[in-house]
């Protein structure tokens, strides 16, 4: 990032307090993901049936769950897993979808056709159900959740990368690069690739939130991370049974945290877009 970009970033934040808030939240979540386990006041896995289903108190800020585990500790520790899954899947789809879209937009022809068909096929599936099916078929392990989340985001990345590439394929600098002796692959990876990077980064931060939701949704259904691992989706699912009976905190805190995290990433996505490309702000 050049200094002018930084200056612009600072300007965006100062002009848009919402983005500032998102940055703050982001820092908080990243902090929780890194330090979570050492900050947690209790062992997130330790049960204590004597203190089951305690409402929030000074001892247990978010209360305790059915078997007396400290919900605050669990929510805190879960950040690493949830954000990790989301980040890994976004990174994966960035690599897969970004390259496929780039190649598809740049070369056109049969490459475009093939990539388009694959993306079409994925899109023709109801995405969440496809993710469920992949996880159900391959087994509910974290790598499979990451893979499933990446696959259902694939068409989106392909679409964005392709559109951006097509826009630049005819750009003068691509011809200039050819004139300067770059071959197709070189032009693709070294000239066009870096240029669509900002848009892809925006795309990544926008899909982070969706990736978190997706992973949590899978866990909610029972096809995600396995109990007793602390994970927001599972915790909401477990807590769901207690809402009507009045133990609202069991589901509410993980749910609210999940929501805040997604909210933060979505706002951040907008913010990053402002920074990268002020004209595209929406």
């Amino acid at each position, binding site marked *: 990032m*050049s200094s*002018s970009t930084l200056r612009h970033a600072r300007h965006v934040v100062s002009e848009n307090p919402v983005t500032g808030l998102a940055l703050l939240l982001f820092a908080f979540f990243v902090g929780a993901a890194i330090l979570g386990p050492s900050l947690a006041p209790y062992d997130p896995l330790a049960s204590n049936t004597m203190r089951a289903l305690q409402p929030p108190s000074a001892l247990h800020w978010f209360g305790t769950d059915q078997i007396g585990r400290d919900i605050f500790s669990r929510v805190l520790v879960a950040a690493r897993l949830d954000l990790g899954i989301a980040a890994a899947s976004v990174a994966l789809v960035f690599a897969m979808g970004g390259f496929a879209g780039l190649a598809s937009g740049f070369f056109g022809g049969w490459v475009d056709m093939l990539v388009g068909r694959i993306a079409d096929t994925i899109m023709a599936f109801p995405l969440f159900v496809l993710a469920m099916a992949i996880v159900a078929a391959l087994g509910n392990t974290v790598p499979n959740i990451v893979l499933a989340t990446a696959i259902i985001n694939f068409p989106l990345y392909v679409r964005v990368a392709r559109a951006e590439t097509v826009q630049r394929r005819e*750009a*003068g*600098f691509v*011809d*200039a*690069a*050819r*004139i*300067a*002796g*770059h*071959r*197709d692959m070189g032009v693709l990876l070294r*000239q066009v690739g*870096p*240029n669509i990077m900002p848009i892809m980064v925006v795309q990544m931060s926008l899909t982070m939130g969706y990736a978190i939701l997706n992973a949590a949704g899978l866990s909610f259904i029972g096809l995600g991370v396995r109990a007793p691992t602390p994970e927001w989706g599972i915790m909401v699912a477990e807590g769901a049974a207690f809402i009507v009976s009045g133990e609202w905190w069991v589901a509410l805190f993980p749910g609210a945290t999940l929501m805040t995290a997604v909210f933060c990433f979505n706002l951040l996505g907008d913010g990053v877009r402002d920074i990268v490309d002020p004209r595209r702000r929406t």
Partner: protein
Amino acid sequence: MIGNEPTPPGPDGSTLLDVAELSKRFPLRRKGWFGGGHPSLVHAVDDVSFTLSRGETLGLVGESGCGKSTLVRLITRLTDPTSGSIRFGSRELADLPAKRFARDADRARIQIVFQDAGESINPRFTAADAIADPLRKLKGVTGPDLKAKVEEAATLCGLPVELLDRFPHQLSGGQRARVGIARAIATRPDLLVLDEPTAALDVSVQVTILQLLVRLRETLGMSYVFVSHDLNVVRLLCDRVIVMYLGRIVETGPAEQVFAKPLHPYTRGLVAAVPRLDGVRDGALRLAGDPKSPIDPDPHACRFHGRCPIGTDRCGLDMPALRRFGGGREAACHYAEEPA
């Protein structure tokens, strides 16, 4: 380098580029159920022949859509021709696929200055990166050598060395134009194609860039193909000029004469339409209407037929070929007459 011997430079005045019967047709994508019938073709460049001597500047003029840009892409070997020949020095380049030409030894000898300097520089490259790119790729220059060569090219183009680490958006239009030129001449090409290099510039800057180009041609001994829609500028810079209409050459000749006494009715209309500082001339020739479609044109009709103020039925049945006239001039019109 892929085992091709670079063309040895010839003496000034010898033929550098010999383009013969060059055509480029683009198939139109048509969605037929079984792909039946012949696809329609856009005749972007049709049977174009011309030569360019060493040290010469050839102007290329015509309306938008006349095939100038395609011709430029063909002779800079960014696109493969449908048919025809492009001889560069002693070498035939038309058969060499554009993909292969990317790393050819002669790649460095044909360079281009793009129309919009701002757009033709990778926004993520500094001026130095942009100028260094062809040097590194085509000449294999690296390290301090590279830096020296970049600075040399920049200095030649009047670009202050301290601007070299700026990104394109941090440069003014004139400075960007200089970066574009420096990049193009960095490899010391024999043929430089200038695609409307001053179209985006204000007149005050345009002058300096044009003067720079003239100076560079003299010091580096390059040949230019200069594409522009501004006839005044073409006249200032070019020795000879080619006038194109709908993919075909309608007139060529020494620039001064072509503009002073155009032979082809299209050239006449074009010259008449150029505004002049000495005010409007009443009754000047007007070319109303638009050019015909370049898709599957009638091979027997003059492309200008229908818009031509003097055309007759004959023009619709018999496509005029380029005819030679005195003073090294040619025109493709049945009714063109020897200039008085």
